């Protein structure tokens, strides 16, 4: 399983590194979206630093959707699906590999966006550093969930538009927990309960992925 996971993760990251889409397209998009969200809310709300964590997660969510879609689209080029299916890769490994690659990509984006929200939304730097571990875990959970949902949507009609519908409700609790724990890190407050939610989500999605990804791939 781990062998396949490394293999798949390596392949995904290599394709990503080659196309530079993350660097040139996804990251700028995130930064602009952050700026725009600030704008859309107007100075009163955006200047208000309590909006920082919420906006950060909102933008991360949209970025994650783009990246999940890309990650699954790789497997869905005409013909690719059939050929790869006949390799008979262990689905648990494929799931782990794709989730891993997505995690790495989301971490990179997340760090840049955190930097952006410190600069642009006046979120406190120290608070943000404190929130870092919880952000990383939340992003990993997003990646695991996203890989699962991504596999659900592919192959049907208009996967790029189906994905958001399916994932948003699932991401909502993650979003809230992430935002709460980030806010708690900023303003002080009970952290651990949000941690529990996020960690449980990560473990649950990973477990479900390992167990059920095979069912999704069979079709």
């Amino acid at each position, binding site marked *: 399983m781990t062998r*396949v996971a490394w*293999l798949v993760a390596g*392949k995904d990251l*290599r*394709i990503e590194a*080659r*196309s530079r889409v993350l660097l040139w397209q996804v990251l700028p998009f995130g930064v602009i979206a952050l700026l725009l969200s600030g704008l859309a809310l107007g100075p009163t709300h955006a200047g208000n630093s309590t909006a920082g964590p919420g906006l950060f997660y909102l933008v991360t969510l949209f970025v994650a959707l783009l990246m999940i879609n890309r990650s699954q689209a*790789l497997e869905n*080029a*005409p*013909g*690719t699906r*059939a*050929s790869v*299916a*006949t*390799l*008979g*890769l262990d*689905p648990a490994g494929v799931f782990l590999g794709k989730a891993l690659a997505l995690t790495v990509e989301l971490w990179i984006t997340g760090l840049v966006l955190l930097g952006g929200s410190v600069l642009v939304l006046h979120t406190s730097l120290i608070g943000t550093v404190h929130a870092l571990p919880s952000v990383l875990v939340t992003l990993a959970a997003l990646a695991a969930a996203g890989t699962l949902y991504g596999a659900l949507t592919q192959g049907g009609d208009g996967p790029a538009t189906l994905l958001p519908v399916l994932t948003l409700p699932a991401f909502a609790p993650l979003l809230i927990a992430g935002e709460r724990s980030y806010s708690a890190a900023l303003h002080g407050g009970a952290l651990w309960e949000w941690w529990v939610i996020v960690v449980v989500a990560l473990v649950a999605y990973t477990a479900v992925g390992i167990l059920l990804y*095979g069912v999704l*791939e*069979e*079709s």
Partner: protein
Amino acid sequence: MPGDQAVVRLVNAVVLSKGFPLLSGVNLEVDRGSLSVVTGANGAGKTSLLRLLAGLDSLTSGEGMVAGVNLNGGDLRLLRRRVGWLGHEGSFYADLSARENLEFAARALERPADEVGSALERVGLTHRVDTTTKQLSAGQRRRLGLAWLLVRRPELWLLDEPYASLDDAGRTFFDQLLREVVAAGATVVISAHDPLRSGGISPQHFHMVGGRMRTT
């Protein structure tokens, strides 16, 4: 089991897609180590048949046993691992080079990495090993597909119009490959519009009409 020799056995196999019967009751038996050619008019169901055999589509009704796997409730992944598939489309990660694609396959199958180089050489792609797959020409993509199969070495080869877009040298190579493969004991099912050119082996012919075998 009586059909120890049969790698493929379909009884009244029906495959529906959105209510349309791609296959409308196919009976088919293919022996181990044989070469079969499926012919038929456009839209007769050749591609659908091969997809069913590869475990890529599922059986709606009827019975099927392919490479020891029952199509009703058997482990389709096991089946897929035993077949090699060459479809109409180039079948790789378009952003990886020819070599990287094959290396991925070799690693996935735990084959030694040096097979990749020799497979690429055999199909005549040595001067394009580092070109990304999406930049290859149609025929080169076909050849890469053959190289992928060389690395795969499956027991059941399912080839959908393998001659299309191969040049003369490619076809000669392919015919020779077929002979080798069959001699080594693998089973081959191909769909074709062109007559087979290889002299060495005598294929079994199947003709499809309207989603099933023509009763001769």
